[in-house]
């Protein structure tokens, strides 16, 4: 083992600390830190662990609602009451940087990490979701990244036995070198069996269990807090390796431990491994903790204290067990054939002390390490980029020129942002655990909560183009779309989790997008009464050449009281009326149409009237509850024409056409067909209930129109589109597989 290097300001800077932060560390300790301590502080004060550049803004988000049991930041995930003595833990997290260099393991460990956050709360995970953003697929590197990520998400969840039920896949140049990979997990827990990540009670025993600790993933959290560069490839060893079978054992054993009552608290080891878990637990319990690194089961000999403390080896947990009940807990771990070791105990001296080979290598106050404690908080400078005014003022009229609308629609259906994502979702087991009432391909997934009649609706949504053009409104639109998707299953939106993927916070023009998006998200969440129960911030999603589009992904949770009162998103029966809620406006800004046909990202994001949006969603929920509608689908990317096409095509075996009369009014055909105006929903309604639905809409002040009828084997949209369903299906279903088949054939 090499001797530890001397700790200097230079070494601290190399660890990603600023000069100011290093001085603060000297002040806290009153001496020069040891090498291990420097490692501990650098990782705990990284953006990834302490949100130093974002927390001031995050605190402006609404965090409490009538159902909130655990608020954002209090535990590993937020917790929401769903009645029947049950609560839902759910959270979304990013694994962007690991996936940029090692897509398979990066994505797999992304799923593993978010699952641990859920079962650490004592909740059994019941669903997994993803939100994936890549560069365009005509590039081999982008296909390699997508293929690896999809396999990684799939293999991990499939083996663990948690269905991957919903998600989104999005393509844009900005994600080329820096893909966005966000994973969300949803779990259910009995409200009398909630576990906490706390260490308290002097003399209680600290036990590590799960996989051995190796050299993988050291400084992963610091890595995630830098821009992607050529050197990133060299940091591939910062990416951890996943073992879903070990995770399965960890999951079952942890839930059994929670049930046994032997635990004081339990915490998973993700970013910053033992350091993060032990210091956070101690800080939460306002206690101290002493651990002996010689007791940590290691994967290889010769590891230093620094390496053991900072290792991010996966599938490990730290538990605090009531003194005297250790053997009971250990018997459970033995049954699941998990390695375990008593590392130390809880103290009352308010210090985190670490022993290694008989020496004390770390003696720090845990409170000073943690978010909400002594971790730095910065108010970064924000400046509106001049180019935004230019974009917003762009004249879009040249793009409204007439064209062959049949061809335009067919091309749109084959666009990777619009086309069927079955190539992805067929690689995911979406029905294991037999809760899945509606899986991938709907507006939101719907999961039956067994032993009750209720169901949960879940979705992930974000249109990053809108956020790019207008971050405040774009983020509000993302919340609105997520809520609309949930409402289209009949469920009431009740809470969100967010994953905020942005660029470098030290660049004011980049930080502007973050600050504005958080503000817009807050406005929308207050309007829908959907508190933010937790989430994750991922900055530095840029490289020398490119930056991602600002991507605040919304993971929304909805509650449906009666699982039988739901509808699908596609047409069900010929003869049903096609009813459109909402109004189409000349809003081509940021649309898929502009991007796909002209390669243009300009204009402004569509207008959003939050009050109208809320009422529109009330109409759809009430209409579903009343049994008056047979399908409900929101209009999003690609506008009304694409949404209607999806209503026709989504049941691949039994496509159903429609004939729709469109009233253009003052609208150009491009707007009429492809504008992405917000707050629009397509319903299919049995003729005998059409009057009731229209009356309900009128009562709520929501514009509604009976556009036509379901039936036949063509989609006819006024004078503009008349297409055979088979041709549409070919475009819609073959687009994505074609990218990957072509490659397979070439190889």
């Amino acid at each position, binding site marked *: 083992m090499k001797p530890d290097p001397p700790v200097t300001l230079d070494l601290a800077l190399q660890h990603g600390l600023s000069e100011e932060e290093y001085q603060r560390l000297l002040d806290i300790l009153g001496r020069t830190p040891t090498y291990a301590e420097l490692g501990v502080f650098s990782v705990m004060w990284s953006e990834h662990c302490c949100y130093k550049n974002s927390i001031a803004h995050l605190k402006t988000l609404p965090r409490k609602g009538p159902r909130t049991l655990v608020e954002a930041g209090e535990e590993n995930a937020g917790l929401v009451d769903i009645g029947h003595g049950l609560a839902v833990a759910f959270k979304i997290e990013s694994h962007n940087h690991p996936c940029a260099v090692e897509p398979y393991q990066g994505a797999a460990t992304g799923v593993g990490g978010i699952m641990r956050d859920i079962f650490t709360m004592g909740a059994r995970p019941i669903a997994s979701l993803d939100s994936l953003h890549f560069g365009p697929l005509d590039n081999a590197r982008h296909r390699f990244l997508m293929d690896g990520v999809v396999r990684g998400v799939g293999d991990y969840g499939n083996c663990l036995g948690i269905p991957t039920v919903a998600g989104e896949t999005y393509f844009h140049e900005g994600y080329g070198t820096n893909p966005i990979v966000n994973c969300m997990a949803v779990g259910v827990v009995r409200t009398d069996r909630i576990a906490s990540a706390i260490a308290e009670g002097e003399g209680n025993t600290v036990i590590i269990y799960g996989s051995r600790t190796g050299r993988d993933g050291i400084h992963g959290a610091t890595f995630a807090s830098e821009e992607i560069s050529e050197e990133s490839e060299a940091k591939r060893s910062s990416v951890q390796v996943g073992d*879903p*079978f070990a995770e399965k054992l960890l999951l079952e054993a942890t839930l059994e431990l929670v049930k046994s009552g032997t635990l004081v608290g339990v915490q998973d080891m993700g970013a910053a491994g033992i350091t993060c878990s032990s210091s956070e637990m101690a800080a939460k319990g306002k206690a101290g903790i002493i651990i002996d690194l010689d007791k940590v089961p290691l994967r290889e000999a010769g590891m230093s204290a620094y390496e053991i403390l900072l290792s991010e080896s996966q599938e490990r947990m730290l538990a605090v067990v009531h003194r005297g009940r250790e053997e009971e807990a250990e018997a459970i771990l033995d049954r*699941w054939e998990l390695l375990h070791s008593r590392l130390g105990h809880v103290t009352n001296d308010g210090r985190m002390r670490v022993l290694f080979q008989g020496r004390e290598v770390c003696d720090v106050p845990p409170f000073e390490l943690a978010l909400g404690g002594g971790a730095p908080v910065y108010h970064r400078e924000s400046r509106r980029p001049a180019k935004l005014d230019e974009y917003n003022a762009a004249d879009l009229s040249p793009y409204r020129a007439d064209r062959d609308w049949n061809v335009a629609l067919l091309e749109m259906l084959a666009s990777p942002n619009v086309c069927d994502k079955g190539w992805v979702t*067929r690689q995911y*087991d979406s029905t*294991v655990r*037999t809760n899945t*009432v509606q899986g991938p391909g709907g507006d939101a997934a719907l999961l039956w909560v067994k032993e009750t009649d209720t169901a949960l609706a879940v979705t992930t949504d974000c249109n990053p183009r809108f956020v790019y053009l207008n971050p405040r409104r774009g983020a509000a639109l993302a919340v609105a779309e997520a809520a609309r998707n949930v409402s289209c299953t009949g469920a009431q939106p009740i809470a969100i989790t967010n994953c905020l993927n942005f660029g470098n916070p030290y660049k004011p023009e980049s930080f502007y997008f973050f600050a504005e998006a958080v503000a817009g998200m807050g406005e929308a969440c207050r309007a829908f009464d959907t508190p933010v129960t937790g989430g994750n911030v991922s900055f530095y999603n840029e490289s020398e050449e490119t930056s991602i589009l600002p991507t605040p992904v919304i993971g929304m949770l909805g509650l449906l009281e009666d699982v039988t009162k739901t509808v699908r998103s596609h047409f069900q029966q010929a003869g049903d009326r096609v009813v459109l809620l909402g109004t189409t406006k000349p809003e081509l800004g940021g649309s898929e149409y502009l991007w796909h046909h002209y390669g243009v990202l300009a204009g402004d994001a569509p207008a959003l009237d939050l009050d109208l949006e809320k009422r529109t969603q009330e109409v759809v929920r009430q209409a579903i509850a009343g049994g008056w509608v047979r399908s409900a689908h929101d209009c999003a990317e690609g506008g009304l024409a694409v949404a209607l096409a999806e209503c026709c095509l989504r049941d691949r075996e039994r496509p159903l056409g429609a004939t729709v009369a469109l009233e253009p009014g003052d609208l150009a055909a491009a707007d009429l067909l492809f504008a992405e105006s917000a707050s629009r929903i397509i319903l299919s309604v049995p003729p005998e209930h059409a009057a009731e639905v229209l009356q309900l809409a009128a009562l709520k002040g929501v514009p509604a129109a009976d556009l036509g009828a379901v039936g036949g084997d063509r989609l006819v949209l006024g004078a503009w589109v008349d297409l055979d369903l088979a041709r549409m299906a070919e475009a819609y279903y073959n687009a994505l597989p074609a990218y990957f088949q072509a490659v397979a054939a070439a190889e």
Partner: protein
Amino acid sequence: MNFGIVVFPGSNCDYDVYWGLKNDLGYPVRFLWHRQRDLEGCDVIVLPGGFAHGDYLRAGAIARFSPIMEAVVEHARQGRPVIGICNGFQVLTEIGLLPGALLRNESLRFAHGPVYLRVENVQTPFTSGYQPGQVIQVPIAHGQGRYYAPPEVLAGLEDEQRVLFRYCDASGRISPEANPNGSLHHIAGLVSANGRVMGMMPHPERRMNSRLGGSDGLALFQSLAQAA
């Protein structure tokens, strides 16, 4: 008629079978831990889906050595019913209670989704509740589901009508397009020579409640209950 579900540490469809048998059919059912040697008097043994020991080596290759498997083999030898679903089917081929092997899917990718199956032989305790040639829909969810056996074994299976389920399209037609993993002879499920051990890759336990997409799987478990 007691159902016993063997739980390996990486089983993940154990609870799904349990829930369906208990709540959709009201049958007595219990879990049997893989390290026990006693089947606790269960009449039908179910080896459920999942990844028994992670299956990083070859699906089912380690599970066959679990202590409970000796009792399962003995149970089968006595002519009492054993059913392996997905990973359970893989375990049954590994231990030799069923012939052949399950290889990686032809696509080399995990495949999930509903498939159609044609019921080929209803003269067994597993299929007596179906009509001859009936087409049912159940989901598959596997990475290693391509059934393989040498030609002489396949010929024997066909001669003895031991293929119980074959992949087909909605109308019951057999075709390469309707075969989701490249299985030889489009085999989705088959039975042992004595007719008492059955393995299938698709998941009938996921089709026991219309709330969850259909109930075509019910008849399989009802057949078993009637046989005993």
